[in-house]
């Protein structure tokens, strides 16, 4: 479904991704973790070309993302993305947030888009808020709307870029619950997160990145959490720190 081959990226002289290679098959849930500045958010954004790369190949469902000739809007319309800061459109109501791209990008009729969008809004439990504006919702609610917005485009894969990092601790659970349900339904997901509980519970694989944009580990959840002896020293150090508490 997704394949990255030797992907490298520089900001001026600073290398932020260094020969990243991995693949995600259909239905897989992959968690990407690592310290700040390790390039994990950049990596996930290369998959729908929000971040261009200078080297390497990125394939999504047989489409060459790295190819300048690729129709990026079309590709992106099939890849759902959830951002750290929600990025709902503040000048539009919740319902308009859910329907805008369905109508303008996918060409659905307003009625169709409405019905489809509200179906997902109901799924994330926010039907009562359909006529509100994003600013009137809590962070957790906004993020759930953002997930519903991405799902209403019927994506083939969902990318999550630190979806709970900007939330009050009390609201992390409600967002993770939605994501866990989604994973259980078989959605292909790539999730940048520090929530190791989520990784343990529903991920199939864990990718660990370190400063300089290198993938240090790319292994099954079981190997990652239960066989620390087989891990790199840097990974052990990271795990020891975040699992200590």
């Amino acid at each position: 479904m997704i394949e990255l081959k030797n992907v490298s990226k520089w900001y001026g002289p600073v290398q932020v991704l260094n020969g990243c290679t991995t693949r995600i098959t259909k239905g897989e849930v992959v968690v990407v973790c690592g310290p700040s500045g390790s390039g994990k958010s950049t990596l996930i954004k290369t998959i729908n070309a929000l971040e261009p790369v200078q080297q390497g190949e990125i394939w999504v469902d047989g489409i060459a993302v790295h190819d300048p000739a690729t129709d990026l809007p079309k590709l992106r319309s099939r890849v759902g993305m959830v951002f750290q800061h929600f990025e709902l459109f503040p000048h539009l109501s919740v319902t308009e947030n859910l329907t805008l791209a369905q109508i303008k990008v996918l060409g659905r009729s307003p009625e169709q888009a409405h019905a489809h969008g509200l179906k997902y809004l109901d799924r994330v439990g926010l039907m009562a808020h359909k006529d509100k504006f994003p600013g009137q919702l809590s962070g957790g609610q906004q993020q759930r709307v953002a997930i519903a917005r991405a799902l209403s485009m019927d994506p083939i894969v969902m990318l999550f870029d630190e979806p709970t990092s900007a939330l009050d601790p009390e609201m992390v659970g409600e967002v993770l619950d939605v994501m866990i349900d989604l994973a259980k339904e078989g959605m292909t997901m790539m999730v940048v997160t520090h929530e190791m509980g989520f990784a343990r519970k529903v991920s199939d694989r864990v990718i660990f990145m370190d400063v300089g944009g290198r993938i240090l580990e790319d292994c099954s959840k079981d190997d990652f959490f239960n066989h620390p002896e087989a891990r790199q020293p840097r990974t052990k150090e990271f795990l020891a720190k975040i699992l200590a508490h």
Partner: protein
Amino acid sequence: MGGLDLSFFDLEMLRKFVLQGFFFSVQLTVVATLGGIVLGTVLALMRLSGRVWLMVPAQVYVNGMRSIPLVMVILWFFLLIPFLIGRSIGAEISAVITFVAFEAAYFSEIMRAGIQSIPRGQVMAGQAMGMTYAQNMRLIILPQAFRNMLPVLLTQTIILFQDTSLVYAIGAYDLLKGFVTAGKIYGRPEEAYLLAAGVYFVICWALSTLVRQLQARIAIVR
């Protein structure tokens, strides 16, 4: 030098001399604001496009316009037109075209700041939903930029309304000219200027009050 005599200031005088000028000033302000915002937005997008062949002309135009006094642009354009197209188009139309072209430079800077005030995440969110550059601009970025900048845009419009009096340089019949003409006819030029100032003040003060109230109302809740 006798005392001030404002007795000529009545409805008939307003109707005969001032009304026509007032309408032209308002018309000029409205057309220059709308035209200036449209053209200014195009210039702002050119400057933000990242493409040299679009950025440089827009930058030269904006900086050039902002470096020349408006009254000179008004005069030049009025005097040049007959040379360029072989006939005069009249002071009023000439003024309208000049104001749109001139104000576009100022509105473009306001719109540029407005577009840049939108968080990068919003641009990315639009892109991630599969929107094209044009869709993203039209549906996500510009509506927010416009709303953020509305108070500044309206303030610029108030300045623009005051600046319309500069068309005296080419003899167009605006609000000020209406008063001046009346002053001449009634033999009270000083009083006429005073009254004109009063009318400009009342209009602009009322508009600024309106802008302040609007500002509190339209802020987007984030």
